[in-house]
């Protein structure tokens, strides 16, 4: 299992050809209290850089972009009932969606954990 990060503060955990996507601990800290999450339905096709989910804090709405092209396998239904999972466990139970990776080459443009940490430190 490999974990990758984007400049838009998503994390992507890849196992075989399935990727699980969420927002990072840094991102949830910036957003503050999450009160609503909309995740894509299974079967939805998403394109790298396209809108895939919506996350709303008390203060503001933000789009979450698909970090990879592929088909959604599952949206995290638990977030509908308890959006605060994104605050309490952003890189675990607070995942947003899983998708089937259609182009492995897209992974090469993503950051490693070390690169992402350096990126956040520079923010």
């Amino acid at each position, binding site marked *: 299992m490999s974990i990758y990060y984007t400049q*838009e*503060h998503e994390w992507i955990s890849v196992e075989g050809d399935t990727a699980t996507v969420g*927002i990072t601990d840094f*991102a949830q800290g*910036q*957003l*503050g*209290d999450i*009160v*609503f999450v*909309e995740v894509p339905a299974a079967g939805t096709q998403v394109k790298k850089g396209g809108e895939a989910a*919506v996350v*709303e*804090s*008390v*203060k*503001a*709405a*933000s789009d*979450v972009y698909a970090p990879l092209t592929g088909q959604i396998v599952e949206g995290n239904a638990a977030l*509908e009932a308890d*959006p605060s999972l994104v605050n309490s466990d952003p890189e675990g139970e607070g995942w947003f969606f899983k998708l089937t990776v259609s182009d492995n080459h897209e992974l090469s443009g993503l950051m490693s954990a070390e690169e992402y940490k350096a990126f956040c430190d520079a*923010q």
Partner: protein
Amino acid sequence: MSEASETADKTLPLDAWHRAQGARMVSFAGYAMPIQYEGIMVEHRWTRESAGLFDVSHMGQLTISGDDLDAALETVFPADLSLLKDGRLRYSLLLNDEAGIIDDLMVTRRDDHFYVVVNGATKDGDIAVLRSRLPASIGLDHLTSQALLALQGPKAAEALARIVPGVDALTFMTGDAFEINGVPAWISRSGYTGEDGFEISIPAEDAEKVAGLLIAQPEVKPIGLGARDSLRLEAGMPLYGHDLDETTTPIEADLGFAISKRRKEEGGFPGAARIQHELANGTITRRVGLAVLGRQPVREGAMVVDGEGNEVGRVTSGGFSPVLETPIAMAYVPVASAEPGTAIRLASRGKIFEAKVVPMPFVPHRYIRKGAGQ
């Protein structure tokens, strides 16, 4: 996914103090201001249950003095100042000639002068308007060396009375001069959260000392602008620049209470003719409160749409109510749709939201009024 960052804004007297308390600072009204310390939800609930300390030093504090002051000020404010006793304050409005709202403000009679608190983003414009409309014999001072704190919440009186004996004798919308550990302070029982509470004007040089004394009380925590906004929204109070501006009139904004009966009848203030016309004939739109169905908040800028999808109004404030745990909003809707219970459709971010007009405040006010018993 990032938010407003720190900029080269002007700093307020408590800037270093906020940072030392762990505040995240953002740009607001030209100043670096604390948006939150621990988190908006926690700070919001703390204020509703205990007492929150807000720094509102960005707001403008003015004094107006001179001969025939009541008559002069009645030419610029629609308030009935002849009824305003010493040490009492009133919510009022600064209007343009078409009754558009230039600002909303609090005016207090203080002995031989009036003390006026105006919004931070509008204060320079307000001063220019007041100066142009008042006779040269009337003095207008901008108290730039005063800081302003607000202590809000059900335990505010208990906490403040410990360091300012006697302050709990004030009732809602009254003020008086006090001392806080030797610091001269003008304190009024007022605020903008819907809770009991106080606003405290002190010399800027003493602001850190007074803020430190206040948060040393176990009931008190510092609260940021984020929770200030969600609190005032729950309290059904409009925010200038969002729910009110120069294109909205007091009648459209449902602020007719701010214009006394005598002034409505007699006029004699900017925009009076338009207000009298609207009172007699009604307006096209009115500000109402909305309960939004579902869990997704609908924000400022969302459209109110009719059955055909045409824009007929606009959401001016919207968010998630931490107390009700549901999305709430303020919007201008057609008057025919302004009655509580009316179904309203909103369009935002490519989606349609269902909402219902509900009475405001969304969360009941808890002011300590005269004669209500304490």
